[in-house]
């Protein structure tokens, strides 16, 4: 099952698929909340050097199963809350 276990208090769950999972060597983990989505990729880059350019830049993001936009105008955008389920969605290859 790909779903994350429940995050401890003050944390959210993040799911990694395909290339993101290979790069982090994880399927899922818990990160401290709250966190604006605009800071998420920088946060992951601190943990996994190189992931931004190698993986994240071609990925989309879901929060609680809905796609969210990454703000590109310098605004904060959506804030990830405690208990949320975030997923990194690399380019898909079904079929």
């Amino acid at each position, binding site marked *: 099952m790909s779903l994350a276990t429940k995050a401890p208090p003050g944390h959210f769950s993040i799911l990694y698929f395909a290339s993101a999972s290979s790069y982090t060597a994880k399927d899922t983990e818990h990160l401290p909340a709250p966190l604006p989505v605009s800071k998420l*990729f920088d946060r992951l880059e601190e943990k996994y050097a190189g992931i931004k350019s190698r993986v994240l830049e071609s990925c989309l993001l879901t929060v609680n199963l809905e796609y969210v936009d990454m703000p590109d105008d310098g605004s904060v955008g959506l804030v990830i809350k405690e208990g949320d389920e975030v997923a990194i969605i690399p380019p898909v290859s079904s079929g």
Partner: protein
Amino acid sequence: MAKELSEGSRYAGLTHETLDAQSMMDRVRSPKAGAIVLFAGTTRDNFAGKPVKELQYTSYEPRALQSMLNICTAVHEKHSLTAIAMIHRLGVVPIGEESILIAVSSPHRQAAWRAGEEALEECKEKVEVWKREEFGGGEGGIWRANRDGAVGVRIDRDEKETDPGPGPETNGPVLRPGRLGERGHGPVVARLDPRSEKATKSTPIIE
């Protein structure tokens, strides 16, 4: 046991079991339908001529099921289908076996042909399923991306240096700089190409 999502005469499924074409056809069978079109996608033993030892699919299951059902709903409505069913296999899929089945039924065949193709293309573009091709012989594997020019990423994490892989003529893992927040593939809004819609509407139905 398949994970499923259905609504009316639309069905989406994900399973680790072998796919069964007959049962998918039976899902869309109806006395109101004069045609059933079935598409079966099977796994190839090579990637641009390079032998593939094994294929494996993973998925963000709840998200993928919702995307599949959204596609079914949009295609169903656009082509006034009788029914549509789509199932994708996950885990290791041996070479030559079905990884996806799409069955559509409609009163007349033209709509079914078109709907079947559109449903597949939408699925390949949007559904949150990922294919990993293992080449064997210590060479590792890659995560494939359906989108043209998308990043192909090697599985080995230690191998950080960019491997340009085969050239574009072989359709190999294409590595290119991406823009931050670049759309790898659109959000799932069951959007269909308005041009094809217009084309469809203006096409006379040939009995």
